[in-house]
């Protein structure tokens, strides 16, 4: 294709985006758009799947039958969401197995929040409330993303996730109203998960290399800082309501702007965790890799059996 042709195609493509016409899998799209989407959606899928592990850590120790069922259903949803999202990447020509191998080899990234350990039951509350809360802030605008399959997957994900944050907040509320040791457990979880949750929105806008192009393509609808602010504004009153303290001495309400001001994020920590130096990075990837390796004979057997059955049918 000549450069002129490509520039016309790109112009038409951008016109569709500007007019809020969704892009579908077989439509022409710029290579960069395709690659950006594959990167973003697969990161998102990996985050869902790796995100099963910190909560999975407490399934067998959940304190009662109701909590155990809820936690299982939630972690199961995360597997489902990973699957919807891998499906969306496959519409762009990415192969699921290759995508997953990229995760296991460290080429692909996932949300760094899942590299923190879950050390108490209260962490199940903090993750649902804060981590899912932050994820929802990110995800709701993605339901209007310009790429059809991603937008549709996100509609489904958001619908299903509505219970995730609630169950987390319910756990926190129960603990905050409970015995002194329960309240302490809840506060400790909030202390540990607050700052990593703010980091979930990614670097400040000035540092974010993908934001501008992604906004132009309507893959992204809000900047990292806008979403982070929305999250802080929504969450601070919830903490106050249940009598927990946000671990930020600089946090204060600004009457003029109508927003909370909050303290500086430790970006050095963020980049260390992204680079692989968080407390659980190695465990998480090793666990996923092991699951895949241990399942290899199963996947192979199912293929072999399907093949035999096809042959028997044919003969």
């Amino acid at each position: 294709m000549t450069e002129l042709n490509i520039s016309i195609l790109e112009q038409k493509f951008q016109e569709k985006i500007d007019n809020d016409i969704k892009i579908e899998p077989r439509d022409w799209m710029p290579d960069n758009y395709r690659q950006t989407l594959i990167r973003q959606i697969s990161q998102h899928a990996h985050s869902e799947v790796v995100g099963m592990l910190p909560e999975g850590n407490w399934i067998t120790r959940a304190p009662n039958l109701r909590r155990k069922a809820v936690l299982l259903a939630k972690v199961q949803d995360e597997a489902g969401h990973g699957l919807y999202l891998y499906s969306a990447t496959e519409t762009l020509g990415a192969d699921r197995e290759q995508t997953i191998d990229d995760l296991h080899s460290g080429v692909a990234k996932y949300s760094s929040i899942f590299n923190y350990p879950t050390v108490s039951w209260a962490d199940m509350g903090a993750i649902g409330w804060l981590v899912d809360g932050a994820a929802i802030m990110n995800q709701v605008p993605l339901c209007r993303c310009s790429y059809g399959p991603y937008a549709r997957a996100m509609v489904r994900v958001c619908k299903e996730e509505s219970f995730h944050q609630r169950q987390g907040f319910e756990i926190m509320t129960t603990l905050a109203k409970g015995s002194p040791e329960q309240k302490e457990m809840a506060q400790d979880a909030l202390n540990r998960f607050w700052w990593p949750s703010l980091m979930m929105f990614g670097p400040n806008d000035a540092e974010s290399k993908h934001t501008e192009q992604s906004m132009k393509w309507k893959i992204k609808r809000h900047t990292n800082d806008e979403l982070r602010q929305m999250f802080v504004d929504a969450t601070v009153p919830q903490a106050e309501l249940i009598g927990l303290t946000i671990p930020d001495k600089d946090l204060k309400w600004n009457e003029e702007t109508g927003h909370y001001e909050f303290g500086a994020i430790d970006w050095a920590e963020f980049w260390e965790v992204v680079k692989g130096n968080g407390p659980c990075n190695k465990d998480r990837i090793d666990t996923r890799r092991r699951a895949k390796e241990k399942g290899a004979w199963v996947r192979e057997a199912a293929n072999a059996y399907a093949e035999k059955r096809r042959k028997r049918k044919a003969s």
Partner: protein
Amino acid sequence: MANKEWPLWEVFIRSKQGLSHKHVGSLRAADADMAIENARDVYTRRSEGVSIWVAESNNLFASNPNDADSLYEPSDSKVYRHPTFYEVPDGIEHM
């Protein structure tokens, strides 16, 4: 064989009797039985369906989006196919 990924299947779900099956997404499965069961477990966890179709993705054939002009636009001008094209005198209600 060792590293062969299971085939990709497209999943269609009838949400209730009387409605047609609608595409909901895809999954991987080694055979059709497994694809149906996986579809049940993945796509109907919240009672979204009463019937499932699965089809191996490489058995689906799609129209080419580049042909969209010639495939779909010619019907735009055939307005006489729609009832609103016709004038009905006042006083006629159910037609």
